[in-house]
C-alpha cells in the first residue's frame, strides 16, 4: 500500500515544504474568510432546523437575492454602499419572513415531506424568478474600493474584506448568542425549539418566535451575502446553490440546532476546502465534493454532530 501511495505522500510533504510561509498564510486567510462566510450562512440553517425541524432550502437563494438587492442598490440606484448594506439586511429579512408565511406556515401541521417539498419549491421559485427578472447573465457585484483593496502584511497580500469578514462573523455571533441566552425572546426561542406546544401553554406566541428566527437568520445571510459579493463578485441566479448545500452540511457537522456548532462547521469546511486545493491542485475540480465527504464521515462516526447532544427517541 505504501508503495502504491508513496508518490502522493511524497507530493504532499513536498507541497508543505515547498510552500513558503507567506503562501501558507495566504491560504489560511482565504480559508478563514471562506469559513466565516460559511459560518454566517450556516447559522440561518441551524436556527430554522432547530425550531421547525426542516431544512430551509430557500435560505441559499435568499443569499443570492441579497446580492441582487445590493447590486440594484449600489450600481443601479447609486445609493452609497453603507446605506445599501443596511437596506439589503432589511429587505432580505422581509423576504425571509414572507417565505416563512407563504411557504412554511400553512404546512406546519402537514406531514414532514410536504414542507420539504415546499422548501424545494420556494428555492426553485426564487432561482427562476431571479433568472427571469435579472436574466441568467452573470452580473458584477459592485466594487467597493475600501473593502476590495489589497493590504500588504509582510509578504502576504490580503484583500481588506478578508479582515472584515471574520470580525463581522464573530460580532454577529456574539450578538446572537446574547439574544439567545440572555433575553426573554431568546429563551422563548429555545423553549419553542424543544416543545412548542407547552411553550404555547406558557403564553408564548409561536408565530412571532418563528418569524423572529427567520428574521435573524435572513439578516445574517444578508450580511454574509454582501461580503460574499465583495469577495466573489460574479452574481448569477444559482450562486447560492452550492454554498447553500455546503452550509447546511456545515450545520450538520457542527451539530444541527447548535449555533456554535454551525460556526465550527463553517470553519472546518472553509479551511478544509482551501487547503485541500492548496495541497492537491490536481483535485481542484473536486473541491465541492469535499463537503459531502466530510458529511458522510460525520454521519458515520458522530451523527449528532461535533457539538451535538444525543437525544433519545421515545417510541
Amino acid at each position, binding site marked *: 500500500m505504501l508503495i502504491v501511495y508513496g508518490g502522493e505522500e511524497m507530493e504532499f510533504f513536498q507541497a508543505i515544504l515547498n510552500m513558503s510561509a507567506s503562501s501558507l498564510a495566504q491560504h489560511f486567510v482565504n480559508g478563514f474568510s471562506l469559513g466565516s462566510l460559511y459560518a454566517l450562512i450556516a447559522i440561518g440553517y441551524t436556527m430554522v432546523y432547530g425550531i421547525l425541524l426542516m431544512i430551509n432550502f430557500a435560505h441559499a437563494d435568499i443569499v443570492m437575492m441579497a446580492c441582487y438587492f445590493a447590486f440594484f442598490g449600489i450600481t443601479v440606484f447609486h445609493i452609497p454602499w453603507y446605506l445599501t448594506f443596511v437596506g439589503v439586511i432589511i429587505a432580505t429579512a422581509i423576504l425571509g419572513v414572507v417565505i416563512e408565511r407563504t411557504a412554511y406556515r400553512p404546512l406546519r401541521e402537514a406531514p414532514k415531506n410536504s414542507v420539504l417539498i415546499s422548501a424545494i419549491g420556494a428555492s426553485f421559485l426564487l432561482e427562476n424568478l431571479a433568472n427571469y427578472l435579472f436574466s441568467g447573465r452573470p452580473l458584477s457585484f459592485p466594487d467597493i474600493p475600501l473593502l476590495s483593496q489589497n493590504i500588504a502584511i509582510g509578504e502576504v497580500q490580503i484583500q481588506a474584506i478578508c479582515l472584515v469578514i471574520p470580525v463581522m462573523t464573530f460580532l454577529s455571533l456574539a450578538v446572537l448568542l446574547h439574544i439567545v441566552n440572555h433575553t*426573554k425572546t431568546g*429563551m*422563548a426561542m*429555545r*423553549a419553542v*425549539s*424543544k*416543545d412548542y*406546544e*407547552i*411553550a*404555547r*401553554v*406558557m*403564553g*408564548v*406566541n409561536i408565530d412571532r418566535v418563528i418569524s423572529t428566527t427567520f428574521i435573524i437568520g435572513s439578516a445574517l445571510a444578508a450580511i454574509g451575502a454582501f461580503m460574499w459579493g465583495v469577495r466573489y463578485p460574479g452574481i448569477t441566479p444559482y450562486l447560492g446553490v452550492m454554498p447553500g448545500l455546503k452550509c447546511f452540511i456545515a450545520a450538520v457537522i457542527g451539530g444541527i440546532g447548535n449555533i456554535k456548532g454551525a460556526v465550527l462547521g463553517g470553519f472546518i469546511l472553509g479551511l478544509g476546502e482551501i487547503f485541500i486545493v492548496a495541497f492537491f491542485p490536481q483535485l481542484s475540480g473536486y473541491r465541492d465534493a469535499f463537503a459531502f465527504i466530510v458529511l458522510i464521515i460525520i454521519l458515520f462516526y458522530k451523527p449528532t454532530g461535533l457539538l451535538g447532544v444525543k437525544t433519545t427517541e421515545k417510541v
Partner: protein
Amino acid sequence: MLKVENLVVSYGGIEALKGISLEVPEGKIVTLIGANGAGKSTLLRSIIGLVKPGSGKISYEEKDITGLNSQKIVETGITLVPEGRRVFPNLTVLENLKIGAYLRNDKDGIEKDIRWIYDLFPRLEERSWQMAGTLSGGEQQMLAVGRALMSRPKVLMMDEPSLGLAPLVIKDIFKIIQEINNQGMTVLLIEQNANMALKIADIAYVLETGRITMTGTGKELLENPEIKAAYLGKKKD
C-alpha cells in the same frame, strides 16, 4: 368558577369526549378519575386551548373561553401542569420558572414568586442552575408545578402528576397540592391514581370512555363499592 357544558371533542378521528359537563367551584380541589384513554387529558387540552372542541361550551368566571388560543386562556388565569411534566430540558431550572411568568412584566413580583416557589420546593433552589433535562422525575414534576404557579394563576390544572413517580414522591406532591389549595388556589386534578386523588378531592367526577358516569365528594367515591371495584382494588372476600 370554571364551567364545562356538553363538551364534545374529537381527537385524531375518534370522539374522545362525548358531551361532558362539570364544574370547578372557586377554591376547591376537583378531581377527574378514569382509566387510560378515557379522555381526561383531552379535557384539559381543550380547556387550555391546545385542542379545539367540536361543540359545547367552556366558561371561566361567566366569560366564554371556548376555542380561544392558549395565550388568551393563560392570560385569564388558567394554567396547566402537563402530563409527563414536559419541562424544557434545554433551559435551566430558573429559566423554566421564568418562562412560566412569560406573560408577566412585573420584575419584583416575579422575583417574589420565585422565592415562593423555592420555599415550596427547596430542592429546586439547590438546582437552580442545572439544565432541567438532568433532573429526576420527581424534581421535574416539582419544577412543572412551580413553572405553572409562576403565572399567578387562579386555576391550576394538573394532568396525572403521579405518573411515573415513586410512592414517597407522590405523597410529597399531593401534600403540596393541598398546601397550595389552602393558600387559595383552585385545582382541577386528573389522575389515574384514584386513591390519592379522591383522598384530597372536594369534588370528584368519574370519566369513562368520554362520558361522566358518576360524581360526588371525594369521600363518597372513596367509599363507593363500584369505584372500589373498578379503580381502587376491591378487597378479596
